[in-house]
């Protein structure tokens, strides 16, 4: 045995050492070639502190004006004169190219193209085409970036909506706003970081469910807080009769002591979350009434948003409230306006829906701008997918419908580091396929996160043995959308 050791040592001469070394160096080199960041320092998880952006953000807050039901791009921002020319003619199969259809039109034997009932005009420095249904949006065209090349994977409302709101078609993931709350924290500790406001138009509607603003696997403090559309937007915030603030304080202190005790016993993080939520609710008792009081708004504001803004539960009122919440440091304000699902009676219903939202959406941009807040607030307007260029059901001169279309649709964004006054992306002359600069939902998320100062690949949360991201395993930041 001893001899063998000795022999080994004797054999280990300089030549052998160097040749062995070269193998080692070679494998190191190979390793770094195969896994580029194998030697870079640390993993993302150690470096990431929730609550602080990864890099200097362009936008601090988001107001997302979600148009639920999927507004037609062909009557709003994607001008296709060819469809009018070819009114009633069959959609060429080469254009459809095997696109799967919903159950609502898959039984249709023909797919007659149908052009917009409404005319389009060009506006602004970018000469963007906008339909006559959106005159107020047209008036702010120099402040917004119209994206005509959004696409998604889902063809029905719930999966598509869930995809937009959580980055996955099935439920139970964390919502966009929850990720934002987790990644950036709350600016104003007296209000929730993520608020949800609902309104409803007269058009054919689709439901929204609280799973869309769920915190998923994230801590429940990141859950969206739904404001009710009645006279008092946050329920049970007032002290009941006979209870004053001092009493309330005392009650909360006692409750916190009890909760603290059981936290020590069980260590359930939900308990400490609960303590924080009670504390925030206490502070909300003073912050919210001031916020939701619209009576002090100057007359000009009522004229800007339209008189509907004083009627609780309307889209206009929610836009005004969203501006106030955002001004007070709420990170993510999610509006949903329902009623955009025009399978039939499109010209009529779409006009009503547009009337509901057009003035107030534009007013929100103007209002943020005149306060110097547009630079730091990102406003997004859009639905979950687009609508088909062919008619669903019987085609008539003034009445037609459009089915769901995932391959292209239009949204617009404004403020917060988005390149203003541009039209991004392009669809073919049939308005069916994207021919330039496609934007997938994951790309959209990645870009928005980037504007908020977050690297979408580093904003992760480990759950059930796997790290989750809003963008799952895809998505790329699109510099073309950013100023």
């Amino acid at each position: 045995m001893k001899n063998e050791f000795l022999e080994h040592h004797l054999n280990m001469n300089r030549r052998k050492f160097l040749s062995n070394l070269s193998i080692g160096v070679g494998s190191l080199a190979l390793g770094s070639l195969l896994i580029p960041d194998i030697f870079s320092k640390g993993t993302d998880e150690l470096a990431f502190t929730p609550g602080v952006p990864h890099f200097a953000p362009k936008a601090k807050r988001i107001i997302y004006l979600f148009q639920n039901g999927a507004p037609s791009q062909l009557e709003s921002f994607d001008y296709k004169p060819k469809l009018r020319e070819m009114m009633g003619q069959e959609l060429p199969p080469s254009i459809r190219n095997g696109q799967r259809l919903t159950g609502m039109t898959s039984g249709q034997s023909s797919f007659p193209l149908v052009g917009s009932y409404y005319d389009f005009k060009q506006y602004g420095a970018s000469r963007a085409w906008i339909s006559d249904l959106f005159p107020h949006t047209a008036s702010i065209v120099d402040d917004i970036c119209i994206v005509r090349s959004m696409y998604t994977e889902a063809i029905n409302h719930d999966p598509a909506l869930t995809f937009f709101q959580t980055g996955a078609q099935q439920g139970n993931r964390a919502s966009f706003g929850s990720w934002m709350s987790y990644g950036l924290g709350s600016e104003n500790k007296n209000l929730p970081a993520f608020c949800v406001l609902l309104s409803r138009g007269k058009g054919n509607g689709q439901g929204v469910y609280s799973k869309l603003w769920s915190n998923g696997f994230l801590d429940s403090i990141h859950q969206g807080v739904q404001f009710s559309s009645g006279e008092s937007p946050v329920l049970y915030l007032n002290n009941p009769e006979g209870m004053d603030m001092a009493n309330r304080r005392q009650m909360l202190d006692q409750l916190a002591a009890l909760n603290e005790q059981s936290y020590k016993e069980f260590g359930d993080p939900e308990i400490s979350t609960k303590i924080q939520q009670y504390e925030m609710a206490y502070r909300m008792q003073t912050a919210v009434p001031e916020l939701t009081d619209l009576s002090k708004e100057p007359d000009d504001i009522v004229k800007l948003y339209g008189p509907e803004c004083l009627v609780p539960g309307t889209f206009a009122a929610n836009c005004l409230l969203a501006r106030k919440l955002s001004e007070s440091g709420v990170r993510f304000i999610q509006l949903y306006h329902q009623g955009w699902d025009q399978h039939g009676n499109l010209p009529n219903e779409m006009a009503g829906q547009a009337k509901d939202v057009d003035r107030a959406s534009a007013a929100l941009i103007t209002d943020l701008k005149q306060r110097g807040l547009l630079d730091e607030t990102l406003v997004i307007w859009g639905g979950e997918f687009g609508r088909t260029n062919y008619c669903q059901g019987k085609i008539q001169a003034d009445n037609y419908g459009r089915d769901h279309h995932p391959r292209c649709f239009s949204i617009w964004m404004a403020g917060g580091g988005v390149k203003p006054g541009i039209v991004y992306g392009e669809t073919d002359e049939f308005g069916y396929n994207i021919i330039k600069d496609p934007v997938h939902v994951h790309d959209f998320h990645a870009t928005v996160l980037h504007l908020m100062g977050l690297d979408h690949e580093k904003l992760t949360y480990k759950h059930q043995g796997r790290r989750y991201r809003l963008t799952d395993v895809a998505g790329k930041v699109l510099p073309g959308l950013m100023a």
Partner: protein
Amino acid sequence: MNEPTGKWYRVGGSILLAANTFVLFLVCFSNSIVLPPWLQVVGRMHPLLLHFPIVILLLAALIAFIRPRDPALQKWKHVAIRVLLLTGALLTAFTVIMGIFLSKEAGYDEAGLQWHKWGGVILLWLVSALYVLTRRQLEDQWWMKGGMLLVTLLLLVTGHLGADITHGANFVLAPVTPQQPKLVPLEKAEVYTDLVQPILEEKCMGCHNAGKAKGGLVLEHPAQLLKGGKNGKAIVAGHPDQSLIYARLLLPPDDKKHMPPAGKPQLNEKETALLYHWIKSGASFNLKAIALPMDDSLRMAAASLLQAPASEPVYDFAPADEKLVQQLNNNYRVIYPIAQHAAPLVVNCYNKDQFNSKTIEELLPLKKQIIEMHLQKMPVEDKDLKLLASFKELRVLNLNFTNIKGQTLAELASLPKLERLSLSGTPVTLAALQALKSAKALKELYLWNSGLAAGDFEKLQKQLPQTAIVKGFIEDGSHPLKLNQPILASTDLVFKDKMQVCLRHPVKGVAIHYTLDGTAPDTVNSPVLKDSVEISRNTVVRAVATKNGWYASDPVQFAFSRTTYIPDSVVLITTPDGSYAGSGALTLNDKQRGGAEQGNGKWLGYYKDPLAALLIYKTPVPVSQVCVGILSNVNGYIFPPSKIEIYGGQDPKHLKLLKKVIPAPGKKDDPSMSMDVKCDFPATNVSCLKVVLTGLEKIPDWHPGKGGRGWVFADELMIN
């Protein structure tokens, strides 16, 4: 090394001679040659082949300067030079031929190409000549060395010119030569000279210059532009669509008339937009961009073209003590770094009751790091601005809706880096704002809803030419809006003896004109509602809202019904359909009307059974009318009942039929509506009433659900 046999030299020499002749031919007749596509492929290999002659000729030049003492080596040198020169010359010849082929493709800068071409051709001739001369072993002659030096020089120059063509001028030195931003600042830019002309120069004047003047159009001087070309006017001021210079851009790219022609660099969207707006605005040749209003399309197009790529801001200060930041942070004063491991801090303040001068004063230790302060709606006073002025790193300051009046704005002018200042909602005046003249870095100033009059903005803009002044939305009364309709303060539409009808409107200062007699309310003669109006019988209240500066609202109407005898209890004998159970029996007696929608929980819906309800009074009441509120929505299969029967008596077991009413049947295309069906009968003393609504047994033939059963919906019973 063995010298190659003379045969190889002869073959090589002949090819070289042939190639030289061919090059001469190509150079002379290059303008009249049309290449077949496969030769284009050969031509495109020029950048590949050219590296060989460079290396071989440089090697030959190097060897020419070696002076071996050994005669054997001397011999070797001679052979090497000959072989290298021959190979080099041949390769140069092929490279030149390929290069000339390649040059036939469009899109190269003509001037640069000429120099490069001639460089190559001269090099070829020089190398060929040197090769011929080496037959006589003259390598050590001075002119031989000179020739080799010349070859080296030519190689470098020609190679460099070629690289310029492929990679762009100044490719090699670009990283070390400081980039001179060619962009003119917007404040100085003239729309024609600094924006339009450069576009024309770059994209159009290759052909439309005084030399070529294609289509008779020259774009070098304004006068020539105005003159136009053979096909018409290049510009028609105010009408881009008639201006050929713009209209031709819009033609489809495969159109023969499309400009610039296919293969030439096209105008990008920004440039196209600029041309459009310039022509649209009158195609002036001496307009300054800054003379245009802030929101003018041409100015914006100009600004977007002139916009230098935004550079990331640099902060050259040390981070603050983290503990100190944490200490100063609380629920109402939030301090956070702009990013992880970044020194700059942002401060937000909330809740005005928690704010005073100290809130700012306590931040002074962080004055070297704070770059943004958001104090909107906080009670910041004029005197606090002096304090704020010590935060020299401030870039963004938001003072919207604070208490400042503006006397001390001069303090803020001393902030050297302040870029964005928001003063919306404060009564600052023009005089006070003039103090900001010395704020050199100020780029954006927000003055919506401030003390400035409409005319003041222009004056202020002249004083602050570098600053974008945002005046925001000003309602000048030119586009009045329509008011929304008044709303009822209470949802009760049924009353017992009398009722105070109270209408409200969300907009302050609105007058509500109303009528009680069913006539249309008018905004002049109809009385204005003061708080409320009393009614005591069935009444339709109609109302409109008016206010100065607004269009009157659409009229709204509310029908109020009286019910004299409210039963002490109501019992449903039959059960309503599960989806439309309302609040059970109470639904018929809750003073609430159902409205237009059956699914709102204010209606009772029956499908299989008739609706049968029992109303019980503890003391007998003289009843002469039962009024039944029903819904009709034929498209939704909801029909008026086929009959309504009213029974009355002293107790539920002894009831007799008091009245049977057959309501008007539903007709095709009837709109969805709620209505009251009155059942009148001679006054009868009853303690108990039974109301039965029988649904339509058979839906008529015009309806898609013909032959089926109709739904019955009821919302209220009024007993008089």
